[in-house]
């Protein structure tokens, strides 16, 4: 009989204690008026600029890293940052002079050596750095990689570096030479006309001496030459930046402290923004985009602009012989009502594509796709029938771990109605499987493709995707000698304008074959709290210009 009293009593008492302690808890949850607080997410890798390929680590590093080139926020045009001058006579031998007064946040000077050593480290195959491929154009790149001989088929489990170590003995790119403290030279294997534009990417950042002593410790608390420095990175919680006291460049920040608060989803961040706990976000939850609800939620404290991301539908005519006819692919393209899909599914946050290159980059020319990207169901049907149609159901494969189902369904509907062919969405693969199957040419019918630019140049939307040996060329591969010829000429062109004109011609070739069907260009959004003075700008990469955000 006493047992029950004890049991119930204990439960009640402990519950009471909990409730009490819960109420008495510390309610100073918000971290007082300590500078700018912005949306952040979990970096996938340590914060080494040469080993970061995603925005969670990239956004904070945008502020802590300075490079030779700085991209203008508005038009992504390259401007000299650390570089004093970059000169070349033949697009193959470049002389880089750097400004002598730049310093890393640990006080050491940025020298020609800081660049060359960092680039060599990233290009060294066995280090397996993500940015490795950026150094491909540099002379001596091949000798730095672990490549098995032509006739050897490497087992899937084998590490190429174990058996076939790089042949380069001094672990340095032959194409990089330090001339003096502030000068170094770059030699490329082939002619490159837009090297200057490329050098603004984080992969080309300089690294201080401390990195080479302990790369792992560096990744936890990186040291860069940018306007801000990393004070503290608490995993899963926040990345705190403060002004770099050593910064002497032309692109300083305004606020003394910027905190990236780490969220696992955009919804929670958006709620915090509305409640005033967060100052800037660059991911608006999909529900709130509908009818511009977010702009009314935030009293118009938001902005939107095109960014360097494109979406396409790819077709591999080698994997799917029934689609090995350009006219069929053109008909499919004309059968997709892009604007309606954008309005219905994306709440207007895309722009219909008129070509393969994003409008934000240097060299963009509208209308490369021509009539094939205009919605014209009658013409599409006529062309489709005259080309013989398609037996069975078309499939549109998209990966199922991201929100691709709705638009794929809508695009399929549009195709079904216009061409009178069965069209189904294949959601059977996650992104990992999707990429593997694409790489092995196992996906028939249509498949989704997306591209996010590395650097703002027309070349970046063409060569890495559609040149014969490119790693993301899943289209058969697409191998067009004329395309190769034009891009090679463009790379050798004496100035950017001529190069861009040649790249535009190469882009126009894609419309003949239509293995890749342009869908839309992405736009980026940013919203901010009422603590922010004026407007927040977004750059061509979709990253808010945190440097120039000022609080009231």
């Amino acid at each position, binding site marked *: 009989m006493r*047992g*029950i*009293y*004890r049991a*119930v009593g204990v*439960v009640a008492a402990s*519950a009471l204690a*909990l*409730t009490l*302690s*819960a*109420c*008495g*808890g*510390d*309610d100073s*949850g918000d971290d007082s008026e300590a500078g700018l607080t912005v949306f952040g997410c979990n*970096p*996938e*890798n*340590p914060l080494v600029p040469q080993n970061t*390929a*995603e925005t969670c680590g990239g956004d904070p590093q945008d502020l802590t890293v300075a490079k030779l080139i700085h991209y203008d926020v508005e038009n992504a045009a390259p401007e000299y940052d650390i570089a004093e001058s970059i000169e070349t006579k033949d697009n193959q031998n470049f002389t880089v002079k750097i400004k002598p007064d730049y310093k890393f946040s640990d006080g050491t000077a940025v020298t020609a050596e800081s660049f060359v050593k960092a680039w060599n480290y990233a290009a060294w*195959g*066995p280090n*397996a750095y*993500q940015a*490795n491929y950026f150094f491909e154009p540099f002379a001596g790149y091949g000798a730095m*990689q*672990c490549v098995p001989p032509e006739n050897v088929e*490497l087992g899937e489990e*084998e*590490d*190429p*570096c*174990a058996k076939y170590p790089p042949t380069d003995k001094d672990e340095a790119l032959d194409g990089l030479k330090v001339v003096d403290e502030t000068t170094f030279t770059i030699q490329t294997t082939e002619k490159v006309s837009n090297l200057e534009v490329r050098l603004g990417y984080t992969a080309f950042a300089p690294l201080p001496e401390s990195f080479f002593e302990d790369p792992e410790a560096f*990744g936890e608390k990186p040291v860069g030459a940018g306007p801000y420095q990393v004070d503290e990175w*608490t*995993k*899963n919680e926040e990345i705190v930046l403060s002004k770099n006291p050593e910064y002497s460049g032309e692109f300083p920040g305004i606020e003394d402290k910027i905190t990236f608060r780490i*969220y*696992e*989803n955009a*919804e*929670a961040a958006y*709620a*915090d923004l509305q*409640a005033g*706990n967060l100052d800037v976000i660059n991911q608006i939850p999909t529900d709130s985009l509908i009818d511009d609800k977010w702009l009314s939620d935030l009293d118009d404290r938001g902005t939107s602009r095109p960014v360097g991301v494109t979406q396409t539908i790819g077709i591999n005519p080698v994997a799917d012989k029934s689609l090995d006819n350009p006219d069929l692919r053109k008909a499919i393209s004309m059968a997709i009502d892009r604007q309606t899909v954008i309005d219905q599914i994306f709440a207007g946050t895309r722009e219909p594509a008129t070509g393969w290159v994003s409008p934000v980059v240097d060299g963009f020319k509208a209308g490369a796709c021509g009539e094939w990207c205009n919605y014209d169901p009658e013409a599409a049907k006529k062309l489709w029938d005259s080309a013989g149609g398609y037996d069975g159901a078309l499939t549109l494969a998209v990966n199922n*771990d991201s929100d691709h189902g709705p638009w794929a369904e809508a695009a399929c509907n549009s195709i079904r109605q216009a061409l009178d062919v069965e069209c189904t969405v294949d959601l059977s693969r*996650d*992104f*990992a499987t*999707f*990429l*593997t199957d694409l790489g092995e040419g196992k996906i028939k019918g249509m498949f989704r*493709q997306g*591209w*996010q630019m590395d650097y703002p140049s027309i070349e970046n939307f063409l060569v*890495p995707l559609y040149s014969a040996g490119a790693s993301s060329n899943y289209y058969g591969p697409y191998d067009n000698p004329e395309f190769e010829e034009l891009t090679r000429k463009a790379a050798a062109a004496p100035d950017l304008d001529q190069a861009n004109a040649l790249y535009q011609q190469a882009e126009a070739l894609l419309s003949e074959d239509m293995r890749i069907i342009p869908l839309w260009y992405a736009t980026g959004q940013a919203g901010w709290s009422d603590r922010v003075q004026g407007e927040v700008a977004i750059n061509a990469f979709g990253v808010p210009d945190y440097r120039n955000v000022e609080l009231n």
Partner: protein
Amino acid sequence: MGKYTLRRLLQMIPVVIGSTFLIYAMVFSLPGDPTAGKCGERPCSPQYVAQFKEKYNLNDPLPVQYVKYMGNVLQGDLGESQYGVPVRDELADRFTTTLKLGVVALAFEAIIGIGAGVLSGLRRGGFIDNLVLVSTLVVISIPIFVIGTVLQLYLGVKWGIFPVTVGSDAPWFDLLLPGMVLGSTSLAYLARLMRSDLSDTMRTDYIRTAHAKGLPQGRVVGVHALRNSLIPVITFLGYDFGALLGGAIITEGIFNIHGIGGYVYRGIGDRDGMVVVGTVTVLVLVYLLANLIVDLVYGLIDPRISHD
């Protein structure tokens, strides 16, 4: 009871081994290359893949991988996530947060749920009974993410009574609202369970006898009736505690709580086997322990259920 506990603890060993092996086999035998998608929208370099496979023992046959993994686990090493963070450290951090959330939710559902169930069970058909029935029906029929976002919008964003999201060290006060959201559905079930059990018990012969003996109402309900009707309720609570810990993904997402649910969810998405297996192992242990405690509590409540 000591013997019984020991026997139950020993029984846990095969269960833990079996379940972790199943999870391990499933996670690591998923089709597709675990490194695909790690390097943006392009395949990773062969060097990267090789380093990755070496690091996570992916080159060994599955049983060997598993034995190596369990060997490390016994030494307290749960491996490293693909973000380079030791799973043990992160799990400890996140588990504390989730445990706090689970305790808040459980306390909320136990106190309100049992209270409401007793009140309505004693007066079947009365005003309180109807109120409880209708309100629990409403809670059960609304999905938890609706409850969560609506409460967050009004109580957090609009009226500022509770914090909108949970702060970095997960203070108790911040967890109050998420705990209520998380516990709401179970609370509704619990209240209904308590109500029907108690009202059944109240109609039994021995309760009538107790009344006839002239015992005060409080003693009849508290000692005679409640004690007997608590058995299924306790079972439910024990099971529910395990479910609250592992299944708080939605609530954790809404309130930005860095807990277990989101960790497993992300681990599955990233094919981060170490994270998934490590977390599931811990969750299996929690389930087993919670059930053991429930079984032991039976004995305290009802001496007829003996563990000797």
